[in-house]
């Protein structure tokens, strides 16, 4: 019996080493461990041997059975591993550099700049207001201290409409009067300061070229409260512009004439390209003219219902205007202003997202 077992052991070892696939492994397993397998045959033979040898022989068969079983499991594990390795080795290595097929949409660059500014102003407590594109003469001019035949009307070539007394908004300032009326009551009764920005499309009758558009975007802002001062205006403009340009900007104010502010200013920022030394970008002046601003004219506050005739300085405030189209050109390096309104997707589809 012992000898038989040893023979079988050798046979199993030799056959196991020849096995290359799972199926022949299973066949081998069956030929040893199934009901009709070698181990069962040994057990049948056990009945025939003398009783005193049975114990030892039984132990031998058992340990043989365990050995076969263990080696079989081990072999199976090895084969599974081998199979996985094969799978991995045969797997394709993908090319990430292939262009992807999923289409991406795009935002208009003005939307991107506008959202960024709205976020900044929102974080500083400014409401974002909307206003119509068709306005009347009163809101666009008279309420802004620009009476009929005022030379300042020459500064803007306005698109007048065939409807009564209406025109296409030539500047976002046209919304000032309405916003003052909208929030004046809360200012006076609850002491809630008016802080608002109002982005919008503006129109001027100009011949179009790379630098001129008849349709463009501005963003105007106002702040009105009891004691708003020029000093506050400079602080605010500097803080806001530092946020916009993501650096500490140096600003300077010089007199600028706009009928709806007094005093009125042109605000320049120091040229970031030359650091103020002078370069072609800033026409060698070291400064870039960026936004007109000023203390809101007493007449404008009066027309807006903020101050009374008797106390024209009860509330004071400042206003400022930003050229969104110009900012977008600066930010994205757009050289031709026509890019914004001509709908050429080869250009616009590049503004994927922020």
């Amino acid at each position, binding site marked *: 019996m012992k000898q038989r077992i040893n023979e079988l052991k050798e046979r199993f070892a030799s056959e196991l080493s020849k096995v290359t696939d799972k199926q022949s492994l299973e066949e081998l397993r069956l030929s040893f461990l199934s009901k009709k397998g070698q181990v069962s045959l040994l057990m049948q033979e056990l009945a025939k041997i003398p009783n005193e040898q049975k114990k030892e022989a039984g132990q031998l068969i058992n340990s043989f059975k365990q050995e076969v079983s263990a080696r079989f499991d081990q072999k199976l594990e090895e084969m599974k591993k081998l199979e996985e390795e094969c799978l991995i080795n045969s797997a394709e290595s993908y090319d990430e550099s292939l262009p992807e097929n*999923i*289409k*991406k*949409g*795009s*935002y*208009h660059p003005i*939307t991107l700049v506008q*959202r960024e500014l*709205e976020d900044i*102003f929102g974080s500083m*407590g400014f*409401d974002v207001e*909307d206003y*119509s*594109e*068709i306005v009347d003469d009163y809101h666009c001019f008279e309420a802004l201290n620009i009476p009929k*035949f005022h030379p300042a009307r020459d*500064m803007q070539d306005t*698109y007048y*409409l*065939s*409807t009564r007394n*209406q025109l*296409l908004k030539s500047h976002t300032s046209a919304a000032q009067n309405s916003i003052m009326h909208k929030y004046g009551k809360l200012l006076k009764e609850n002491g*809630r300061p008016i*802080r608002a920005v109002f982005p919008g*499309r503006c*129109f001027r*009758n100009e011949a179009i070229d790379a630098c001129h558009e008849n*349709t463009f975007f501005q963003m105007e802002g106002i702040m009105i*409260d009891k*004691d*708003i*001062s*020029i*000093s*506050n205006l*400079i*602080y605010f403009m*500097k803080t806001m512009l530092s946020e916009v340009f993501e650096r500490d900007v140096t600003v*300077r*104010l*010089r*007199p600028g*004439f706009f009928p709806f502010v*007094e*005093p*009125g200013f042109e605000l320049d920022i120091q040229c970031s390209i030359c650091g103020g030394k002078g370069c072609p970008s800033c026409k060698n002046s070291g400064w870039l003219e960026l936004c007109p601003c000023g*203390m809101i*004219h*007493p007449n404008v506050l009066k027309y807006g219902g903020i101050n009374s005739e008797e106390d024209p300085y009860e509330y*004071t405030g400042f206003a400022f205007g930003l050229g969104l189209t110009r900012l977008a050109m600066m930010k994205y390096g757009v050289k031709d202003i026509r890019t914004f*309104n001509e*709908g*050429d*997707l*080869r250009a*616009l*589809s590049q503004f994927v997202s922020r």
Partner: protein
Amino acid sequence: MFVSMNWIKDFVDLDGCDIEQLIHRFTLSTAEVEGIEYKGKDVQSVVVGEITSCENHPDSDHLHVLKVDAGSEVFDVVCGAPNARVGIKTAFAKTGGSVCGMEIKPAKLRGVMSYGMCCSAKELGISDDHSGIMELDASLKNGTDIKDIFPIDDVIFEVDNKSLTNRPDLWGHYGIAREFAALTGNPLKELQVMENPYTGDAKVDVTIAKSDLCFRYTSVRIENITKHVSPMEMQIRLYYCGSRAINLLADITNYIMLELGQPMHAFDGKKISRIVIDTPDKPFTFTTLDGNEREITTDTLMIYDDKEPVAIAGIMGGLDSEIVDDTDTLVLESANFDGVCVRKSASRMALRTDASARYEKTLDPEMTMTAAKRFMKLLHDSDDGIRFVTGITDVYVKKYPEITVPFTKKFLDRYTGIDISSDRIEETLISLGFGIERSGDEFTIKVPSFRATKDVSMQADIVEEITRIYGYDNFEIKTTYEPLLPARRTLLKTNENSIKDCLVKRYALHEVHSRIWCDPDDLKNLGLSPENNVKLLGASEEKETGILRTSMMQCLLPFVYENRSFSDSFGIFEIGRCVYGEKSDGTADERRMLGIVLYSKEKSEKSLYMLGVDIVNTIVSELKHKSVRYTKCETDHDWQHPKNTASLSVDGKDFGVLNTLHPSTLKKIAKNCVAVCIEIDMDVFDEIASGELGFAEPSRFPAVDYDLSLVVPDGVRFEEMADCWQKDDNPELSGVSVIDIYDSASTKSITIRFSFVLDDRTLTGEEVQKRIDVIIEKLGKLGVALRV
């Protein structure tokens, strides 16, 4: 406007000042300087030279060979000037010197050596006269530097006219000198004038017939004028400031305009007997001194010699009464006209002159007298033989009221946020010509007449005067202290932002911007034309460019056309404004619209249309938690497909339209393409009340699904079938989804999966079957049957 620093220095002492620094401060305190030019920089080693010999050039028919005595030395010079001749003294540029930015070197001209160059006034940069070399006064000493004779060196700076719109006082050098006086603290010198020596009773006969348009007319008649050429100094200043020397009388009027900002006109005295300022009864044609014919309307203010028109008031004189070279008598006009009237006339005639530009700014009428006296002084300085034959006639019909403004340091401190001393306030205002009465920190300020026509009238104006001279760079900057309040968030903004995000990020559309009016050429490409709507005024008629759009599609469809080769499939959108004609009050009916166009050469029209449906459903369900009802409707526009145009509504409120394109429009875009338009009225959309999100706790028991395959007859819409399994009748129905749609020529069939669920147990098969049977029965009434 060009400003000469030499001229400024006539009125304020700037010795020892850094001129460039000063001009920079002018930008920061007064008005924007656009550029500085250093005149005479190029003119070096140019001296008085006397031509002592003039021979013809042996090898040229126009060149001469000269000997020029330049004082210390005599030079051989080849010269081509026609007026070169023995005995005249001229401007001679020596070798080593320079003119016109070029160095003078010895040179061989047609075989003859030339050492130096005789110069024209143009070559010295002081005139555009290039007719010949300069002929200088014979009494000048040979070899004298030309710059010792003429003020060629000067610093000229250009001020941006736009930044002077509100400052009539800065349209002349004297006013600008006042700014420099205030900036340096040096006094402003008095203007030299001449009083009229005439003592008799004779006057110029002046009648102002339109006292609302002519506020003051000052005049004088002067005879025996014998000089006709203005002094070189005056000519150079005029030239440097962008004007041009003509003759003595015209030059002095121009000079005074540049000096004081007061336009003047000199009439030939022989042609004028009586001056009348009036508007014509009927339109006529008038020839101005530039030789052009002008259409004069009845609201144009004119100057008449009795009944004969001689000038357009404040704009330009007439040809017939113009000063000519032999004029020996003049009638002077120093007047003040209504700025609006001048501006309207000038822009109607497209004739904006230096004079009209100044009148438009509302000039100070006080100035006419000063200007007249200054004219007499300058004319007399040049021609002391003149005879004044009338007194100064001064008709002054409208005086501006004197303006006084109460002012306090406290007000200034509040408005500026900083502390500026009362002494500083007083000093600054006095230097700018304001009258001051002061009591401690309180002031009564008298606005000078030259600032009182419209510029300065209230405390805020006074603040500007003080702060701009104080310097904004010197301001301490301070934050405000406001109550802490969140910014308001508006539905309009959040909806616009969410929709843009959805369209860009989920549907990969491209946002575009377009104009609010139609471009007829663009529409023509699509076989369309603008629809009747509100128009832009002044737009060119034949091109009809001036009609506002009635739909976003009038701009978006042309964009699709232009981009048709951009990609086989793309979509664009814009949130913009359209106009739906006029409202009942006669104003334009402006609408805020979202326009979307989907375009494809790959997809079927049906699938693109269903993508459009998907977009609308997504927007509405995400922003409003509601579902959309689609109703086929009549078309409003030529590009809409008569069959597949549907109105969109929620809660019975129409908020937009979805359509495919009319075949005639579609074929114009490209062959074998399809397109779908969506237009949503954003204001109506914003008004739709949001539904509840409607959260329901999911059941712990599994749902039972039941699939029904149905054959649907033509014309039955899904929404009609959906009425057969309304939620109210089937509380356990937790979901309905379409598993499959199969269309063939003969049948249309659909497989729908119904899911039933209960909170406390699983429904049995019999229970589900009972509910399904009810649905099948209802469907049967629509003609929908089970597929066998």
